């Protein structure tokens, strides 16, 4: 218990430092003014979400290979946490886009592919609710997770090649498209803090899932007895 409190405090401090950096240390953008500061929430959330989905993919592979329930627990936990971060991306995106581009939503490659990614993992979680038997649920959802993750680069590729009608945005452009070095430092600090938050959430979610798994096992044993 003490360890989890300590790690929560550390993550909280990190997030505080990142917020301080985003608001007070990073210089104001010459073109966009204050609104650009949402970058320090938006971009690290996207990176963290992708990291979580990657963890889920690895856990899915390990489950299919090793068949230990803990990989199933890790898989679903990481998918849920990744979905939470991707939701943050999808919400902060329009908030940023409206004052800068003048529209809430544009069907630009990044937005569209992030949205499809989000839908894929919603389907993954939905699938899990529709299979009762734990082993079968674990195996089938892991297999779907693998298919979904393999689809991700194809979704990004297809949308980037053909649907790219929007001019390359100023800040979300290619790396090195003119971010101040100080901005970069704050950006990476934010990402680091977000990764800390992700680890924290992942641990808690994993513990919850493992308890659920234990309860399911006990229930089945009771029913069999």
């Amino acid at each position: 218990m003490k360890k989890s409190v300590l790690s929560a405090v550390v993550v909280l401090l990190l997030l505080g430092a990142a917020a301080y950096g985003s608001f007070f240390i990073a210089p104001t953008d010459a073109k966009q003014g204050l609104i650009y500061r949402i970058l320090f929430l938006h971009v690290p959330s996207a990176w963290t979400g992708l990291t979580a989905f990657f963890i889920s993919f690895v856990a899915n592979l390990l489950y299919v290979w090793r068949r230990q329930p803990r990989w199933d627990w890790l898989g679903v936990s990481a998918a849920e946490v990744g979905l939470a971060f991707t939701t943050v991306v999808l919400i902060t995106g329009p908030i940023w886009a409206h004052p800068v581009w003048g529209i809430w939503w544009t069907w630009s490659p990044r937005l569209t592919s992030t949205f499809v990614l989000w839908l894929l993992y919603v389907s993954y979680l939905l699938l899990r609710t529709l299979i009762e038997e734990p082993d079968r649920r674990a195996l089938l959802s892991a297999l779907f997770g693998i298919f979904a993750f393999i689809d991700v680069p194809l979704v990004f590729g297809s949308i980037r090649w053909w649907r790219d009608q929007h001019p390359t945005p100023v800040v979300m452009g290619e790396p090195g498209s003119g971010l101040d070095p100080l901005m970069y430092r704050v950006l990476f600090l934010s990402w680091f803090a977000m990764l800390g938050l992700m680890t924290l959430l992942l641990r808690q979610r994993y513990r919850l899932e493992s308890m659920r798994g234990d309860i399911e096992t006990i229930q089945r044993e009771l029913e069999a007895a």
Partner: protein
Amino acid sequence: MALLSNTAVLLGKELRTEFRSRELLTTTTVFVLIVIVLFSFSFDPTSAESRRFGAGLLWLAFLFAASLMLQPCFLREQTSDTLSALRLSVSDPFAIFLAKLVANTLFLLLTELMLLPVFAVMYNVPVLATLHWLILVFFLGSLGVSIAGTALSAISAQARMRELLLPLLLLPLLTPILVASTEVTAALFGGSPYVQWKGLGFLAVFDVAFLTTLWLLGEYLLEE
């Protein structure tokens, strides 16, 4: 070699089952026809407008039809309790998938080719000059849809609410197919048609990637 001969036998079974009743083909054809007619109300299908939107709505209709057509693929085996027998009869479970996905590709392609003239007439889009290229796009696209769809129908057949679940799992996964096929088809429908090799290559990459994954994971999909 055993894989190929097993696949051939199973493919024969799939085709016989379908051509005895022709249930899948007729329902899917009528479904696509309905969608094509309904789509015409959402915009004014003059020749210029159809060239802009036609390819997209045609592929959307195909995708919706596929998500219905692939439904019984494994469900039928499950309800008639033939899945275990199937598994016992082949040395490599990939043969089951291979036979089913070849059959599904064939059924989809047949439906698409039957409806292409109807679409061309109703939406004022000339297709004869580029027909052979259109067939190639239809083939590569349908193959991708069938590979992913056959794999996912093995998953959805084992869940509750399976009829609703398959489209939910399948349609987002098929986004790359929809985008690439639409673009290639639109280029062929255009005023000065051309072949978009990039798109054809992309479809081939999708097919190979998913086929390889299915080959690696197939046996787990059919585990009991």
